[in-house]
């Protein structure tokens, strides 16, 4: 559907992506129609990430204040992450010892209010600062394809490549692992984004990964298996030390 096109409402009420005037229901955004009685809605095919509660998302630290950070999560607005929403004990004014502008974090959407304010939290399994790795950004509308039915797609990608992957509902996918694995994950994601609407996607992605020399099913290489995404980083992300505070060089200091 395109904005301004009339929907076959059949007595359904206008849901998201629609509006009603003079008894008729029209699409307000570009997307496809979905009937969810009692509503008819238009599911977007494009656009910015619209936050939903409990979404796991990848954010970039855009600003640091005395008691919170502002995260760029690809949504219409920045989302504040308050220091009480982290696993760390932070003194007021010391936020930048833990996260600095440009850092990448995995957080969850906790609250939304009608004015568009987005509350996020870092409390939860697998959430925290993302160190190393790289981010691939795709359209948020394509994320369900990346995850697949009951996580089947992401499961086969991680299994076949051995990469560690964290999928943010906001379209940002964090990947880490050996360079070959990253290349393979990127290829798989490009295929999903390019032709995710055609049938047999999971098989095609598996074929692609096999063809590009992915290690195939089963425990991969003899060296120690890579941990599942993020289980190692729940509480493991240590607070950043002041550079040179206790003689320990801050490994991240090179970034600045």
């Amino acid at each position, binding site marked *: 559907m395109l*904005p*301004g096109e009339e929907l076959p409402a059949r007595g359904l009420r206008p849901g998201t992506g629609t509006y009603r005037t003079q008894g008729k229901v*029209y699409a307000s955004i570009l997307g*496809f129609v*979905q009937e969810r009685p009692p509503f008819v809605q238009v599911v977007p095919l*494009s*656009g910015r990430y619209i936050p939903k509660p409990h979404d796991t998302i990848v954010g970039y630290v855009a600003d640091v204040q005395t008691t919170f950070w502002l995260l760029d999560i690809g949504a219409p607005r920045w989302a504040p992450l308050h220091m009480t929403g982290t696993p760390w004990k932070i003194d007021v004014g010391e936020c930048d010892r833990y996260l600095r502008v440009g850092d990448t974090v995995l957080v969850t959407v906790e609250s939304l209010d009608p004015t568009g304010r987005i509350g996020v939290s870092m409390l939860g399994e697998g959430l925290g600062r993302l160190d190393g790795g790289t981010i691939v950004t795709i359209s948020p509308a394509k994320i369900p394809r990346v995850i697949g039915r009951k996580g089947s797609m992401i499961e086969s990608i991680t299994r076949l490549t051995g990469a560690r992957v964290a999928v943010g509902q906001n379209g940002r996918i964090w990947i880490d692992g050996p360079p070959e694995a990253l290349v393979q994950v990127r290829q798989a994601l490009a295929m999903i984004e390019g032709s995710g609407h055609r049938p047999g996607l999971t098989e095609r992605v598996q074929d692609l990964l096999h063809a590009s020399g992915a290690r195939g099913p089963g425990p991969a290489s003899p060296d120690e298996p890579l941990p599942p995404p993020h289980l190692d980083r729940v509480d493991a992300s240590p607070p950043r030390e002041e550079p040179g505070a206790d003689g320990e060089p801050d490994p991240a200091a090179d970034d600045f």
Partner: protein
Amino acid sequence: MGSVGAKEVPVLLSPEGLRIDGRKLDELRSIRIVAGALHQADGSAFVEWGANKVMAAVYGPREVHPRHLQQNNKAIVQCRYNMAAFSVDERKRPGLDRRSQEISKVIAEAFESVIFAEEFPRTSIDVYIEVLQANAGTRCAGIVAASVALADAGIPMVDLLPAVAVGKVSGAIALDLKKEEDNFGEADLPMALVPQSGRLVLLQMEGHMTRDELAKALDLGVSGCRSIYEKMKQALRDRYAGGTEVAA
């Protein structure tokens, strides 16, 4: 084409009623619309309309800078219409001038009336229109491009916003003026239509028309807008072809 001093009025209308480029009075120039022409923008479009070439990019909804411009109940719609220095015969001095400021303002106001801005309080929806090559009717081409770009950006709107100019050349009301007709004609009437409601959200006029001519021009413009509307929809369908399956 028109070098300085060449002020001879060309023959705009042949005895057979055909225009300078052979079109009939109610005929549009050829239009090609490409949705999603840019990667960095949230939405974009490229329009070739006769000899006009216009690029549009939409960013947002996003944080408003400077902060004091933000409105706590809705998004603001900002527009920048700009002509490239090389878009016209005689080099245009780059940057905003009075003309482009006015056009930016009227285009922003036209879009404000179709965008559901209340859905994104305290944000800004930024529309950039760059005219790469101009041959009369660039504000209409800009609106068409920007409207497709807004839909491509997933911005909720009442409808797409087709636009066209109608004018008066050699005493006759003609659709979609080209440069010579605009320069030597008697009137120019750009308009933008909301097809869903039939409302006009942009209407300007330069020159003179009688009441009857104005009524005729409005009718002609509205029907022109409707055929442009179909092309805009087709451009968006082409871009999202295959993504339109019905979900389970």
